[in-house]
């Protein structure tokens, strides 16, 4: 009996800790969804209304009707998409080059670049764009977002390329292939999972950044995260539209997390952080 009892207690304790760990995440996302589906009266009701009854899409309609939501979405796609694509184009080969030449100094440089707060790049880049007259342009935003995407892609790729045995390529090189061919035909295909991971993480971090766009974005160029801060915010207590907009902004990255969770976990726990 004691064994059975202990096992039961064990189970209860385990279930309880699981509940404590997961419920905060559920609460916040649930509340975000709930606010976005209720009308104003229910949103400010006391005691709070948890389940929207009946649910309304009016808040979403308002977000699209009263704001240039689609424009901001498009800006986000251009800025983040451009910064990720360009980051991959130069970051993947760089990761290979650094891994193969075992250049510890470049690796340290990349690490420091990754660790430096985004805000500290903002002041100098702001001044430069100011001098060049590029404040409020999408190109300025895209260039600034490279600060986020390039280091993370290079860093993750270094890890992946290091784990591909150099001997595979040595054979090809001896057979007369040049380094480009050996990269292109041997290392690159093997590092595909790393490319996916690096791309996804760079996308998420770039998408989530908001302070660059708050300062550098113009009326027609700002990205989604700064748009919800700049344009919507707290007008009286219109919580419904605000919650709806917040949910729409973060939805792409949440979906990506759910779909590619295995890759993200791999990237963050293995390629991105553990290895070096």
């Amino acid at each position, binding site marked *: 009996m004691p064994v059975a009892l202990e096992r039961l207690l064990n189970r209860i304790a*385990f279930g309880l*800790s*699981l509940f404590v760990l*997961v419920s905060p*995440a559920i609460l*916040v996302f649930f*509340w975000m969804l709930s*606010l976005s589906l209720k009308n104003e009266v229910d949103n400010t009701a*006391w*005691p*709070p209304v948890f389940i929207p009854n009946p649910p309304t899409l009016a808040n979403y309609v308002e977000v699209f009707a009263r704001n240039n939501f689609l424009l901001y979405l498009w800006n986000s796609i251009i800025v983040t998409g451009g910064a990720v694509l360009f980051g991959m184009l130069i*970051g993947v080969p*760089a990761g*290979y080059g650094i891994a*193969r030449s075992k*250049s510890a100094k*470049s690796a340290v440089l*990349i690490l*420091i670049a990754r*660790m430096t707060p*985004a805000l*500290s*790049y903002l*002041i*100098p*880049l702001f*001044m430069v764009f*100011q001098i060049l007259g590029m404040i409020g342009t999408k190109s300025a935003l895209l260039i*600034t977002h*490279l*600060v986020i995407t*390039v*280091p993370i892609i*290079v860093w993750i790729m270094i890890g992946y390329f290091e*784990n591909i045995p150099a*001997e*595979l390529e*040595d*054979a090809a*090189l*001896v057979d007369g292939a040049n*380094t480009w061919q050996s990269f292109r035909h041997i290392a690159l295909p093997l590092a595909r999972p790393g490319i996916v991971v690096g791309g996804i993480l760079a996308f998420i971090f770039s998408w*989530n950044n*908001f*302070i660059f766009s708050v300062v550098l974005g113009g009326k027609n160029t700002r990205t989604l*995260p700064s748009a919800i*801060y700049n344009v919507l915010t707290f007008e009286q207590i219109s919580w419904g539209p*605000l*919650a709806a907009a*917040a949910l729409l902004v*973060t939805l792409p*990255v*949440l979906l990506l*997390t*759910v779909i590619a*969770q295995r890759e*993200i976990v791999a990237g963050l*726990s293995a390629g991105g952080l*553990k290895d*070096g």
Partner: protein
Amino acid sequence: MTDSPALAASASSRKLAEKPYDFSRKYWLFALPAVIVVLSVIVFPWLFTVFMSVNDWKIGGGMDFVGLDNFRTLIADERFRESLFITIYFTILAVIIPIVLGTVAALVFHREFPFRGLLRTIFVMPMMATPVAVALVWKMMFHPQLGVLNYLLSLVGISPSEWVFSTSTVIPTLVMVEVWHWTPLVMLILLGGLAGMPTEPYESAKIDGANSWQMFRFITLPLLWPYIMIALVIRTIDALKVFDIIFVISEGGPGTASETLNIFLYLQAFQFYKIGYSSAVVVIFFTIIVALSLVLLYVRQKTKWNA
């Protein structure tokens, strides 16, 4: 690094047989485009910041070389010193709590149980969510009269809190958001550590009659320690960098109660437009981050050694 003996052997034998080849050659070419980008958008801003930090420069005004004056003023600036203190206070809490909770979470998710994948995804989601978006939702939840959190507190018989609307509770409240956001990362790092753990020590400990606490204390924890150290350094750097959630939820207030270094920096640069002065803050901040990054690197090397 993984060794693959068979391939290595064959490659090296052939290498010896044929002409010698310099394998380190030309690899820098691969990095060249990235080097150019990194130099122009990352290294140049660093140097430019140092340049600006020794000048008195306000947007819309002229520029004067002032040497180290900005740094001197900074050290005497009570608000700067206060922000350092607030940053340290915030960082300590925002490092220790996620490490403890993340360790528990890693142990929980290391076990097999129904819906593990789904629950883990939910648990990891906060880490990926757009900080501004969730910060806005938190802010609505913190509303002292209409917020859902005070209602939930009242359900369990706790009197309402003023959350971010009081100087004494604002930092713990922001730490709570930060813990919510980043405990998953600690969990993932430690989960990676747990996955690579040998099983033999546990088996022999079981035979010796050790209970689960003893097994955790004397086997898991020592083996996990290097990973905890990595998580610790990464958390420290991340906590120092926190900006979005504080900026959106409390704007550094009430008063200056949650004005961390980052918020102070933003205020000086983009509210008062003191470019030189704020650059000096960046230089100090940057030095701290570089030092911590080097610690991280050192810890990482050691981990490799131990593992």
